[in-house]
């Protein structure tokens, strides 16, 4: 039996699309109440894993439980207790906000559906837009409506697939505040994202590449474990320096951030040499690696730059 405190507990999940293996032996445990961030390049298997967890795709191999229910056998039961937010807006654009929520309430056969819908609209701040067609909402409000629709039936697990793609910063922040509110109430959340600031808000980061988990842990753990060295240089002409130093051995990334040149690499000695040889004229200081540096590094490891 699964210990009850693991909401997701899957081993060696595999999924093939034709001859292409999309998820390749994925093992994942998520404890109750955790906000777990799913990261990785496009096509790394994030969406496919999420779809297998909620029973929308049948795994070709592996086993495990989701909310203590077998993911192979009990998919319909899992669906009742999971809130799944698709990557693409998948509510009905020709229905209003409240009509969409009424539909969801009806499909989950919620007791006293009208009250439940009214209540959730108040909590999620959708009351003023109840009568608006979903298709006419802005991106941020659409995401909020989609999140509302998938928490309406009080699920124990939220699976959010790139919920904030294409949404402005303010709306993203508001969205994440909502996610943390929900997690505070004991809800477990698995959320995939490409945004670093969002990854930093997750208690745990799971980085996927080629359908496997490459690294996981808290943001600090991930950064520490990779052991990347980063420096910042200031001075002029910064763009020229960036172009030169990018070609130096041992420099994995050289990025201009406003007036600062940010470089990263694994080998301190090579970086020192590069700064002395190609970055002369700039003033350098060592800085803490950012999560973004770590992910660029991981992405490059997968697919070395040409």
């Amino acid at each position, binding site marked *: 039996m699964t210990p009850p405190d693991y909401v997701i507990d899957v081993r060696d999940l595999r999924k093939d699309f034709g001859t292409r293996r999309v998820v390749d032996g994925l093992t994942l445990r998520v404890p109750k109440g955790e906000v777990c961030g799913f990261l990785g390049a496009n096509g790394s298997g994030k969406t496919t894993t999420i779809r297998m967890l909620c029973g929308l795709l049948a795994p070709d191999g592996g086993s495990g439980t989701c909310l203590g229910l077998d993911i192979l056998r009990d998919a319909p039961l899992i669906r*009742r207790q999971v809130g799944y937010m*698709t990557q693409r807006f998948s509510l009905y654009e020709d229905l209003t906000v409240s009509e969409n929520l*009424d539909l969801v309430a*009806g499909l989950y056969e919620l007791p006293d559906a009208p009250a439940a819908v009214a209540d959730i609209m108040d909590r999620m701040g959708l009351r003023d837009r109840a009568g608006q067609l979903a298709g006419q909402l802005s991106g941020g409000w659409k995401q909020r409506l989609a999140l509302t629709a998938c928490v309406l039936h009080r699920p124990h697990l939220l699976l959010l697939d790139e919920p904030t793609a294409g949404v402005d910063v303010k709306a993203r922040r508001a969205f994440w505040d909502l996610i943390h509110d929900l997690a505070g109430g004991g809800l477990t959340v698995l959320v995939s994202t490409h945004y670093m600031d969002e990854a930093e808000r997750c208690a745990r980061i799971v980085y996927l590449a080629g359908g496997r988990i490459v690294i996981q842990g808290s943001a600090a753990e991930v950064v520490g474990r990779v052991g990347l060295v980063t420096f910042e240089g200031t001075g002029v002409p910064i763009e020229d320096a960036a172009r030169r130093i990018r070609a130096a051995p041992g420099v994995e990334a050289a990025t201009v951030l406003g007036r600062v040149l940010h470089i990263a690499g694994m080998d301190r000695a090579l970086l020192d040499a590069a700064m002395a040889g190609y970055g002369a004229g700039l003033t350098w200081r060592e800085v803490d690696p950012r999560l973004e540096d770590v992910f660029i590094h991981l992405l490059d490891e997968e697919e070395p730059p040409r």
Partner: protein
Amino acid sequence: MTAFSLRRLRALLRKEWLQVKRDPMTLRLIVALPVMQLLIFGYAINSNPHDLPTGVLMAQPSTYERTVVAALRNSGYYRVRTLSSEREAEEGIAQGKLLFVVNVPPGFDRRVDRGESPAILIDTDGTDPTAIGYATAALGGLTDVLARDLPPVRRAATATTAPFRFVVHTRYNPEQLTVLNVVPGLICVVLMMSTLMLTTLAITRERERGTMENLLAMPVRPIEVMLAKIAPYVGIGYLQVLIILLVAVGLLHLPIHGSIVLLFAVLGLFIASNLALGITYSTLAANQMQAQQMAQFTMLPFMLLSGFVFPFQGMPRWARVVGEIMPTTHAMRIVRGVLLKGNGLAEILPELWPIALFTGCTVVIAVRFYRETLD
């Protein structure tokens, strides 16, 4: 999770209905399309052609013949010219230059005078039955008129018999379709075309818009999704039937001999069969384009093999077998039977169960192939 929930079905029904309501353009098309089709088809087929090329063959000069020819000409349907030989007549009709050949038998005058009621044989080109339908039908009236114009018959014993008879021999196509036959058929064809299209896109649309993924992630059963998608369109189908009947009766002068209530009740099943077929295509097809092509691919045989275009009995055996499977064939017989013959439920029952069977089978296929996962 229960196998079927009225609560869930109700939620889906409301959603489907709202979506139909929010799409006024489609609604308008749904109303306008059948009317347009019916009028175009109806008038094209119903057009009552006049001045049809007609040749007269006389075995020997005859005085009464002139009266007959004048009467044919006056009816407006015949453009008469005299033919010189049998060969000319044969060639004319074979090449389609003549639609009618009127054969006045030898000794016509004498036999009319004797009250023998001789026959005037009229050969017709049956390849275009609707073209000659009205003209042929008008012959009956002509006989009565001529009975007055021709000299009174001498022998009292034959006073009640007509002075002569027209015997129509339809060539090439012995089973003659009449216009009355065409309009009820049209009702079925038009209804089939529009209702089949309605649900054909129903599920592929959800798939392409991405809403299917969300629907699948929620606890719904396939049968609930199907029923909810079919239901609003049954109502719309009925609206179409009503419009079609109004146009058919009002503009195309279709008589109604049977019970309209019965017809409505029965057509509901026919509508449902088309919707079910549409939804099956929708589950089988990968995208809207494919679904649409499947539907169009179906419409042609449904129309051609149902007895609408070709007389059913004239088709080869395999075509009749295929025709018997299709709901349109049976619906057409039902509509013709109820409207033209005044048939009741007992008479149409044999045509009803095949439609029900077809509907049932299609729904089963649709439910079977409806994927509850995205695989």
